[in-house]
């Protein structure tokens, strides 16, 4: 067989491939097909570059189309020129925190937790400064909320487990919204090789890609869990990265070093604590109420459209 095939022979051998039963011959033909496809693609590029050079134009690099470029445009994007939406955000339920209040967080679990859950919770206590753990003996969450209101807490987090760590509830006190998340791909801290150890400095926050009006609500909710002024000497970072309605969580320590050969600054990261992905299930307007609540947003088959290119956060 020749080294590379012409395009007519290519089409013929490609159609015959699934019918061959001889394994040795089939693998040889498959190699030839792949080589000739590559060769044809390269020749096209060289020709187009030649033509462009003769004319004097620049050759542009082709950019691949991804779902983020093809997605349905969102009407609810917050633009910086909008006075009405910014005034609405400034008079939100989280606005009391942004005037200089420090948070106090309560973390609990579901009933009868296993060993893996308790270790996960001890990692979370290292993430949030000024946080406390409560052993769960009560069945009603509304009684835990009453206890938290008396002792002047500002947030409650509940982590629950069905053989694997699977869910998370964030409640903002005193009147604020509750959010339900679904956790997947949970990696505990002790399983990470070459990790760093946590310290008690106040961390910095990074919130990526929360563009729509719903996204701003959730972004402010995450921001109200941490103290407002970070301590830069601690070099600690917590990131919430949003992409296609999935939120990725990381907890790192960074180092800025100067590379002498390149004469520019490089950033190195070392992981400290847990890493997991979250997905929004629903947001309720008042406190936790499974019977009589009103929903700001809920993901349900009967109401939302079924399309790959539509995102809400």
């Amino acid at each position, binding site marked *: 067989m020749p080294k590379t095939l012409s395009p007519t022979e290519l089409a013929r051998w490609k159609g015959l491939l699934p019918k061959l039963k001889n394994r040795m011959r089939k693998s040889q033909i498959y190699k030839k097909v792949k080589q000739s496809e590559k060769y044809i693609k390269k020749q096209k590029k060289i020709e187009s570059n030649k033509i462009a050079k003769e004319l004097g134009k620049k050759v542009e690099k082709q950019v691949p189309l991804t779902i983020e470029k093809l997605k349905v445009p969102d009407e609810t994007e917050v633009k910086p020129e909008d006075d009405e939406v910014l005034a609405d955000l400034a008079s939100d339920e989280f606005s009391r925190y942004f005037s200089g209040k420090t948070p106090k967080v309560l973390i609990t679990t579901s009933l009868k937790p296993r060993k893996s859950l308790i270790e996960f919770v001890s990692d979370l206590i290292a993430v949030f400064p000024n946080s406390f753990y409560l052993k769960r003996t009560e069945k009603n969450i509304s009684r835990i909320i009453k206890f938290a209101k008396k002792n002047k807490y500002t947030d409650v987090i509940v982590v629950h487990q069905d053989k694997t760590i699977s869910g998370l509830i964030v409640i903002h006190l005193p009147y604020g919204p509750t959010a339900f998340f679904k956790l997947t791909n949970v990696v505990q801290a002790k399983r990470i090789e070459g990790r760093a150890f946590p310290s008690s400095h106040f961390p910095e926050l990074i919130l990526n890609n929360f563009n729509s009006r719903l996204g701003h609500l959730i972004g402010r909710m995450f921001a109200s869990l941490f103290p407002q002024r970070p301590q830069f000497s601690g070099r600690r970072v917590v990131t919430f990265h949003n992409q296609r309605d999935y939120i990725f969580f990381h907890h790192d320590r960074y180092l800025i070093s100067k590379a002498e050969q390149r004469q520019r600054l490089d950033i190195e990261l070392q992981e400290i604590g847990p890493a997991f992905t979250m997905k929004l299930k629903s947001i309720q307007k008042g406190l936790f109420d499974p019977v*009589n*609540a009103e929903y*700001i947003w*809920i993901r349900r088959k009967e109401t939302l459209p079924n399309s790959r290119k539509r995102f809400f956060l």
Partner: protein
Amino acid sequence: MKVIAGTDNGLVKSTTIETKETKTWGELNPTYEISSMTWWNSFPENDYEVVTAHPKGIVRVWDVEHGIQLAEMSKFEKLVKIQLLHSYKNLLTTCSKNGIIDVRNCSPGNQNFVPNCKKPEKQIFPRVIRFETKVNDINQMQVDLSSLEDVKLALGGKGSDLQIWSMENKKCIWKAKNVPNNRLNLPVPIHITDLAYIPNESSKIVVSTGNSEIRLYDIKAQHRPVHRMKISKFLLNKICVSNCGRFVIFSDVTGVLQRIDLRNYQVVQGYKLNSGTVKDIAIHPTLPKIAVCGYSRFLNIYNFDNPKPISSIYLKQKCTSLLFSPETSLQTEQEKLQKLQITQRKNNEYVATQEEEEMWASIPNVEDKNEIDNINKVDNINNVDNNDNVGNNDNFGNNEISENDNQKDDSFDIPSEVVSNSLDDSSTFNHQNQNQSQNKKRLSVNTQLIKKRKNKKIKKKK
């Protein structure tokens, strides 16, 4: 078509649907939440005068096109609902959450009302009736609009079942009885979220409960509900009845919108693209269109038949109340003038347009018949060769009078909008016409078959 919406923050918005323009009036303040809205005139001549009620204890009157606050009344209690009594006087009835009912006289022709006032807080509306119903935690109140002499109210809430009160006697006339016990022999909890009267029958009420049921009550029949329907596992939030009295539209706490036929008690149609609780539903008074708003910050408008919305407009706040204006389309000034003339001619006031006046002035009078005959003869003799002049004169004589006659006939016909009040669907009207034509074909086919059979029978006998 125009829609007026009241928000969670104290703003009032008015939108036109075809052009997607919005105007906002008011100051942003989260303590001035709007709970309900009505029109200010009982026979709505204006599209833009609106009364809003706040649970803080304040009632305001707005002019939505120009953005002026006409009046403000305080010293109410925690307000839930406000509604206009369509009687010979303009009376506003308000209902608070504790059960206090307050009726005030606020008509624009009142002696105490000042039209252009700089301090809207100092307007006075005198009080007519006030009485206490000792009912706690009211969720909804409705006024029976078809009763003129003895006005009746319907109340319901969490822990308190359906009750009907009369305004003159200030007493409870009718009280509903609870449904029989569970399978576990436990009493069913009482929780009413929304009420609605069926429009042409003053004795039937539709009710949505916290157990996700829809119930029909008949005052004249019995104290327990006539029919019960179980729907979903989430709370039902809002109910609305169409103008013909046949369809009921309800909404869910999660954003589900569906339509029920009251004759079969079955779900007929579902509507999509709501992703939060629905706070208010409004139906157009003449056309089959629905407007929906809620916590998802979008205004959706649907036809009765289609699950996808016609248009969805992004309002930047959460809206809690809606009003649908009775306009049908973007009316130009000519159409508004024609409407005015129609109403005036019904009241035996004849007003002529400019075109009509010119026509009547240019035509000669009927008293001089000989002159008309002379004119026609002369023109026919002289201008036989010039066809244009003959044609013009003929048109001048014949067709313009016929155009005037046609205009007169159109003016005294009943316009289609008044007819379609009884039929809710304009599409059903067309359906009937098509069915008639199809029925004629079927009749002709059947007669042919009958003739054939008769001939066959006669042949067999022989």
